[in-house]
């Protein structure tokens, strides 16, 4: 692990300078998700030097670390106490940082069963576009003092502030994990995944890759063997590698240059009538689509089902990468952006053209 360094004063000076000169900044972590969102603009401001775990209390289930800390280092420390980040964040490269994981708000296959990134955020220290260092939330599980700005930061793509420190709730690692395999159709997979999710089963992942349904169970040995009696299926021996590959997009499905779409929709939505190749994750609530189909068509069909579509990787990074918002919501986004970054210097246009 690299040594702990606090460079918040230097980062603050950079932001104040950028404000004075009206120069936009692109916040740079490990660069593992630089492909995500609209094309970055402005001078790169590296935050990877701001690193180190500030406190970790396994029996309190809370860790606080600087945002530039490598995700792998955080997870290794937790693992040494038999704990984990419960939202299974992707590591698209080994350089992925904690701050990047929070700022992009991406969660792994366990998300429907344990929760998302923001569900586990307890507090943040953030450097806003006004050049102020502010603290919100804290290091306790329940805290309703003031607006929940810390959770609001999750997924805001650095457009509101530079994350300096993050406090997260962590959980014990499950005693045991198993992956079950079923051969079925997409429609059948969606029905099964949702029927199972409505029963008290120890599910922690459900993926359909086009031909096979993979179901991950996490819990005590006793609970897992009981669940297997109910579920049937075939025991899949390479579960650990499979779930890591799905999480990090190193699974064969993702080895492709075609534009990759992420569709988020109610889990039981029947298969979409859109051309391309599909991988269904999150029990059907997150669907990956490789397609050259027009954005407008994808968005119209997803929205009709009550969902939204993101151009996750590839395609036109200058265009509408995220699902367009209705005018009143878009206007509110602009006002919120202005409330945190009135000069528009932090990751401008990374989310929407004027946010």
């Amino acid at each position: 692990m690299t040594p702990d360094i606090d460079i918040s004063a230097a980062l603050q000076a950079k932001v104040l300078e950028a404000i004075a000169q009206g120069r936009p900044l692109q916040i740079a972590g490990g660069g593992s998700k630089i492909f995500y969102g609209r094309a970055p603009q402005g001078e790169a401001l590296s935050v990877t030097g701001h690193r180190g775990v500030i406190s970790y209390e396994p029996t309190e289930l809370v860790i606080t670390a600087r945002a530039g800390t490598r995700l792998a280092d955080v997870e290794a420390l937790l693992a040494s106490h038999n704990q984990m980040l419960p939202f299974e964040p992707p590591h698209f490269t080994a350089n992925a940082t904690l701050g990047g994981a929070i700022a992009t708000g991406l969660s792994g296959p366990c998300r429907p069963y344990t929760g998302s990134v923001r569900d586990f955020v307890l507090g943040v220290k953030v450097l806003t576009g006004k050049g102020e260092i502010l603290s919100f939330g804290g290091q306790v599980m329940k805290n309703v003092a003031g607006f929940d700005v810390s959770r609001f930061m999750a997924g805001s793509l650095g457009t509101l502030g530079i994350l300096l420190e993050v406090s997260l709730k962590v959980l014990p690692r499950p005693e045991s994990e198993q992956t079950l395999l079923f051969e079925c159709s997409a429609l059948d997979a969606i029905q099964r995944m949702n029927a199972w999710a409505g029963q008290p089963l120890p599910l922690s992942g459900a993926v359909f890759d086009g031909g096979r349904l993979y179901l991950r169970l996490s819990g005590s040995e006793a609970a897992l063997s009981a669940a297997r009696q109910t579920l049937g299926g075939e025991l899949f021996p390479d579960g650990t590698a499979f779930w890591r590959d799905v999480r990090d997009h190193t699974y064969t499905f993702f080895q492709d240059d075609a534009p990759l779409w992420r569709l988020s929709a109610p889990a039981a939505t029947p298969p979409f009538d859109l051309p391309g190749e599909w991988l269904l994750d999150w029990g059907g609530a997150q669907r990956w689509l490789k397609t050259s189909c027009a954005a407008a068509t994808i968005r119209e069909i997803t929205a009709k089902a009550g969902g939204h579509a993101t151009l996750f990787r590839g395609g036109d990074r200058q265009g509408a990468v995220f699902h367009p918002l209705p005018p009143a919501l878009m206007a509110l986004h602009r006002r919120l952006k202005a409330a945190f970054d009135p000069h528009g210097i932090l990751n401008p246009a990374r989310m929407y053209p004027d946010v």
Partner: protein
Amino acid sequence: MQDPASQVDHPIPNKSVLITALHRILPSSAVLSDAEDLRPYECDGLSAYRELPLAVCLPETVEQVRAVLRVCHDMSVPVVARGAGTGLSGGALPLANGVVLSLAKFMRILEVDPVNRIARVQPGVRNLAISQAAAPYGLYYAPDPSSQIACTIGGNVAENSGGVHCLKYGLTVHNVLGLKVLTMDGELLEIGGAALDGPGYDLLALMTGSEGLLGVIVEVTVKLLPKPERAQVVLAAFDDVVKAGEAVGSIIGAGIIPGGLEMMDNLAIRAAEDFIHAGYPVDAAAILLCEVDGANEEVSDQILKVREILKQAGATEVRTARDEAERLKFWAGRKAAFPAVGRISPDYYCMDGTIPRKRLSEVLSRIAELSKEYGLPVANVFHAGDGNLHPLILYDANKPGELERTEEFGGKILDLCVAVGGTITGEHGVGMEKIGQMCHQFASAELAQFHAVKHAFDPQALLNPGKAVPTLHRCAEFGAMHVHGGKLSFPEMERF
């Protein structure tokens, strides 16, 4: 008692003009303006604070809510939204120059979708009614505040309500997927929905717990969970509160996340036992209730582990509920702890701080010292798993000056929670009650940022103004009592 009107600089509107305008958009039975009709709305669950509004509106359609907001917006009249009025921090306390907007008539469950495991409900639906509607499908809505038979989901979202199962199943913010919200100028915003996330900023996080300051919630989509196959509870008695606190850390350290993990001290135990006859050991200094839930086999496994940990932690008695009836009995005592304390004292004042669990013993001993100093007994009820303390200060409002001393004592408890790295409110909200303590927990730059967020939603500051986030002016006045960064309460305590 703080004067809410002093915080709000909106002019006093012409009452008769306002009432006429409201009658034009609502049926006459949906506008209350006579003092005797307004009286039931003068307070919420924090009855020490009372105020009569100019009017109470009881709309029953979204269009009517929008019309009320537009009238108030155009006349610059503040609006306080209200659910069942069970809140404990004065969040629904009326403003003398404002209108109370009751959502009580929005009582319809619009949809239960067992396949997608969601329910879409109107804001006035009671918390427990959602679980009852989902029960035929083996599903339930997880957050269960003690007031769940009465409190509404709209109020739960506004306060980010908790309950006894938060450590494992989260707060309201973890269990809400979508909202329909009317802004003060009458725009309808759809935030999230039946999918697990929505595009753009996480406005659900911002709305949840915003105490009616950002928008009026007119529809809520909640997540439903499968009912655990089995739940089992263990009751452990301790001759020392500190040992009980350490047992909590040992359970979690062993990798067990209980569905519920509650602690009560001797005064709370005796009050609850006297009221409910739950079979609590009345001589114990503290009891822990530890419930594990999940698959049948897993529960059996974990109960054995929990019993062993509790014994090793020095429990004088460890009892597993023999059957479902006894399990419910154990919980009934805990859930009735507040009213039970109400039976042994003319009045009680419920505090709601959260602390890092490891600081429990020093916090409890400080509270005991303060209790002696003020001559006011305290019963402690504690969501031990997530560090959320509910000290109940026993007092008599009819004794001159006792409420004031109780509030001062309560304020010191909250300062203490902040001093050990915790927060002034875990689940009851700031409301009017803890507005002063907010100045202690947050520096002025953070408070200014909160106001900037509020301004983005409600530029005229007409939604529940003066609650939840203090003005910097107010904090400057409050600073005469509590100096931020300089002279602090409890200067001798280790701080974060």
